[in-house]
């Protein structure tokens, strides 16, 4: 930002306008008694350390190794995922969609940023931003190309626009040459984007 010659030195000089605004808002809400500052810390810690895409990766690895679980995921993803230990806010109503050589699934929320928090954590910036939200529905193959994915002509793209409170988890295809791997080893090769549908696992 160009300097206008005035002296801006003060105690918060390193903070941006939005940072100052949020800081002031937090002070006001604490002062009014509307928020418990300790609760804010716990909320942040939860999404920084406890709830993230490793959860979803465990669900995927289990689906790859346990056909009965995969079947349960197809029929009642909310209950199947809860059995692995993940449920609650922004994952109350889950649907799992399975990639196959014929169909590649991809999830978007064109209207806001709906995302399955219990299994994937907080969404990345690109997922919440206009380029992805606008283009995922009209030109999904160009979106996939930006992530380095080129699908076979014969593979159909199936886009899920999360317009209500249903949250979608993509179960990517299990990579070749992973036959001997344990569930834990498999979970380690499942990346976040593969569970949104913008990359392959592995």
């Amino acid at each position: 930002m160009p300097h206008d010659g005035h002296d801006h030195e003060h105690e918060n000089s390193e903070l941006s306008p939005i940072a100052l605004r949020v800081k002031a808002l937090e002070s006001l809400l604490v002062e009014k008694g509307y928020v418990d500052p300790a609760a804010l810390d716990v909320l942040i810690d939860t999404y920084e350390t406890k709830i993230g895409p490793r959860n979803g990766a465990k669900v995927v690895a289990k689906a790859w190794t346990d056909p009965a679980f995969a079947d349960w995921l197809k029929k009642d993803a909310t209950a199947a995922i809860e059995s692995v230990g993940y449920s609650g806010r922004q994952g109350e109503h889950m649907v799992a969609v399975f990639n196959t050589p014929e169909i590649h699934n991809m999830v978007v929320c064109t209207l806001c940023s709906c995302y399955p928090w219990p299994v994937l954590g907080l969404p990345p910036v690109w997922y919440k931003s206009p380029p992805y939200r606008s283009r995922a529905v009209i030109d999904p193959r160009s979106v996939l190309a930006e992530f380095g994915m080129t699908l076979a002509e014969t593979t159909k793209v199936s886009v899920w626009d999360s317009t209500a409170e249903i949250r979608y988890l993509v179960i990517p295809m299990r990579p070749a040459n992973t036959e001997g791997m344990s569930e834990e080893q498999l979970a380690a090769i499942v990346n976040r984007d593969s569970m949104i549908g913008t990359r392959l696992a592995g």
Partner: protein
Amino acid sequence: MNGPQDLGGMMGFGAIAPEANEPLFHAPWEKRALALSLAMGATRQWSIDTSRHAREKIPHHQYWSLSYYEIWIEGLLRLMNERNMLDGPPKTLPRLEAQNVAPVLAKGSACNREVSSPPLFNIGDRVRVRNLQPMGHTRLPGYLRGKTGEIALHHKAHVFPDSNAHGSGENPQHLYTVRFFARHVFGKNADDFLQADLFEPYLEAP
């Protein structure tokens, strides 16, 4: 409303530019913005639908130039201003205490509701999306108006955002996942599919 949030099918926003090894937050204030938004939701002065509507009422030029957590903060300020909560005297409200964060997040807020009315549509039925242009909140994306698809899933009844966002009650409605051929929606991508979750009042028999 035909607001800045209704992005499906728009052009010209540029590259998606996924960031390698993206951090969960890009600045410390983003953490506080997330936590403040969640904690203020727990005061039960508005529903998730009302908060979404507050964000989509941000003018287009502003919405499209703000980062996502900036949109959340702008929405939160609007919600509080509308209720005179920033300048008015403090009120006694339900407060999310630190020890309750884990159980509250684990419980979530399920949106499914029991209704006595049977669903109008069955899986496999052809449906057409009504040409609705409400001034208020809706979860019908503009790009699907007038399009014809097929019922793929029925989720029973859920809270109806178009009503709940305006404090007019939950008015639960049957919710369906409707499957469209991409070519019927955007005239290309011949055999690709597109699904959206649509409430029964958005739909009619073709």
